[in-house]
């Protein structure tokens, strides 16, 4: 069973993504900010990370840069999910190590498609 960490400060988004991933048999963990997400990765590196950009304590991009420096941190497939739709910011997320990017709001089909594009399914 593949594992996924959902890092998002919105419980609603975490629940929506959890339902989608559990339906395709992922083991899911959650973190409400980047710092807790990083701690979760240090404990047990997931296969996939669905990552919000705007989060308290440590934002998504700062988390992403730190993640990629960890031992094994290159491994997870990271999909950044954000309300940001500026092409420059999307490019910045990809340059920082994101495998894919989803603009909020999104639906089940979009997230499933991005997981597939990122090679996570």
């Amino acid at each position: 069973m593949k594992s996924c960490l959902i890092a998002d400060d919105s419980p609603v988004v975490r629940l929506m993504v959890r339902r989608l991933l559990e339906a395709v048999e992922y083991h899911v963990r959650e973190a409400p900010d980047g710092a807790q997400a990083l701690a979760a990765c240090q404990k047990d590196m997931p296969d996939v990370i669905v990552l919000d950009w705007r989060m308290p304590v440590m934002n998504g991009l700062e988390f992403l840069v730190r993640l990629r420096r960890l031992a094994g941190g290159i491994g997870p497939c990271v999909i950044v999910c954000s309300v940001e739709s500026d092409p420059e910011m999307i490019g910045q997320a990809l340059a920082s190590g994101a495998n894919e990017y989803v603009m909020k709001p999104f639906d089940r089909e979009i997230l499933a498609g991005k997981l597939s594009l990122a090679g996570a399914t």
Partner: protein
Amino acid sequence: MKPGELALVARLCLMRTGRRLDTSVPERAAARLGIVARREGYGSVDDLVLALRTSEAERLAWPVVEALTAFERGFMEDPQVLQHVARRILPHLAGVKGDDPVRIWCAAAGSGQDPYSLAILAQEAAARMGGDLQVEIYASDLSVKGIERARTGIFSHFEIQKGLSARQMIDHFQPVEGGWQASSSLRDMIRWRRVNLFSDTPGSMRFDLVVCRGILPQTAAHVRPTAVVNLALSLAEDGFLVLGRGEGEGEADLAPALLALPGLAGIYTRNPAFRTLEL
């Protein structure tokens, strides 16, 4: 919708386009007809269908048929086949064509995702080949309204995220009011026209690559051979036809005109014997 109403619009689709309407989900047909009813000033779908039995029938027939037969697609559908097109067929055709452009016909282009996907793949292939690839895309659909919309190259927030990678999205589209718009270089690659595959005979133009997905499975058995022949006649002598996933498998109607390419599922060439028959 009542069964009689559904049967009426299904018969209309069959007569005008040779396509069988999927009547298993009446709600889907009702939702599409609801849009037409509002646009044409009718209070309900029932009123619209009733008008199809009056002197208004001829004016309303095409808007109804176009709405019911429109395809809902994402970008880059059937990526394995498209990768064959991008990595093998386009470079091969570029070598064969020399200085002439590779001509692609995207039939049943719907709201435009297929032709724009092909344009993106062609630009990416050209970049890999050092710019040594010129491509012209001719996109057609039954729906005039669909073509008008597709020509703008604007896709909603949800549409743009279905099938394209984030990199492709920001490299080839820009955010505009109402969604994301294809770059002018993509739009300039595509020429649009209305074509009814079953009543419009192939013109004199021959294409190096024809992409026609989703049509044949919906086509009534008695008109399918005509559709296949029209597609084959539109191919250049060494051209390729791309069908949707699984659409040509076990399809006896393809055999006289088309041959499956070994090892490349969904991709066909003209049968040389068919070429002789045409002469």
